[in-house]
């Protein structure tokens, strides 16, 4: 079934100097407090992180609910903001493939795909034996996913004790962590062009279309990086 040693190796990525636990904790505490403000109860807040586990989409959901958007509009807005998970999965899962592993592991564990887990897996998959990489991924996923759920509950419960300045401070942790991880990942020309191009095009296209900005910025900057970055992607 699951190789316990490799699974634990993945789980242990929560520790150490590259730990995603702090940024994940910070942003999901802020999310828990926000969901309470939006009228969610404790179970609904926990369920949101349990079943969705993608912060930008959850933020879009909470804000759309507050302005009275329809369920269909919420679905489309979330799909557009979380569509990044599609290229992220395709750029990670082939690295974890092994023909001896059952398909259900891949189909179920794709739920753990999030920016933090993806960056860690991309950073460390080479150290793991090909046969057990999917178990390593499941270890990372269980660790980051459960951190997100527990911290959403913690944020909900501590909402009354968190003032606005504290929440603003918590909210910056996530983008800072991701930016640092991305800069750490800029080891070759194509990834460097992709990161710099995406950072510039994302906010620029957002001025023209708020909903389609991520999709277009990703496609344009990614294709430019692919064409000019050479083969070392």
């Amino acid at each position, binding site marked *: 079934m699951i190789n316990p040693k490799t699974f634990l190796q993945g789980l242990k990525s929560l520790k150490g100097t*590259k*730990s995603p636990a*702090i940024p994940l904790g910070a942003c999901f505490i802020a999310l828990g407090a*926000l969901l309470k403000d939006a009228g969610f*109860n404790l179970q609904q807040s926990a369920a949101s992180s349990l079943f969705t586990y993608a912060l*930008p*989409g959850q*933020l*879009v*959901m909470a804000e*759309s609910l507050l302005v009275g958007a329809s369920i*269909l509009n919420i679905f489309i807005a*979330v*799909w557009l903001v*979380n569509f*990044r*998970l*599609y*290229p*992220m*999965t*395709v*750029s990670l*899962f*082939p690295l974890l*493939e092994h023909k001896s592993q059952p*398909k259900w592991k*891949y189909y179920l564990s*794709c739920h753990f*795909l999030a*920016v933090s887990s993806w960056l860690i897996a991309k950073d460390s998959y080479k150290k793991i034996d090909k046969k057990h990489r999917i178990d390593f991924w499941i270890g990372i996923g269980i660790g980051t996913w459960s951190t997100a759920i527990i911290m959403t509950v913690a944020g909900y419960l501590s909402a009354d004790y968190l003032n*606005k*300045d*504290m929440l*603003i*401070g918590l*909210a*910056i942790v996530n*983008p*800072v962590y*991701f*930016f*640092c991880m991305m800069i*750490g990942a800029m080891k070759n020309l194509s*990834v460097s*062009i*992709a*990161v*710099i*191009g*995406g950072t510039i*095009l994302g906010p620029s*296209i957002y001025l023209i279309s708020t909903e389609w900005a991520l999709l277009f910025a*990703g496609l*344009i*900057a*990614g*294709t430019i*990086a*692919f064409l000019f970055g050479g083969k070392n992607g």
Partner: protein
Amino acid sequence: MVSSQIIILAIIATSLATFISRFMGALTSEKVSVKSKVFQWFNCVAYSTLAALLGRMIIFPAGVLSDSELVIRLIVLITCVGIFIFTKKNLVIPTILSAIFLSFLNNF
């Protein structure tokens, strides 16, 4: 206040909209070889989409972060990235400092 039924429907819609992208990614991955050009293209698109999201989160943030000044967010981000490089890629120090630094500057 939003009704409980609407919240549950919104959670289901959000979860489905999110899982579709992940699951489609898992299905597509079965046909993509690590050595192929398609894989390299997806890799570039994934990094650039992520960077686009991060750029948007800093310049046009959603939620509470929008109550802080853009210039302050940029100062915090650049300082913390500098600390990350200076500390030989330690992520714990810049991330903790970013929260303290932004809360402090926001009240200055």
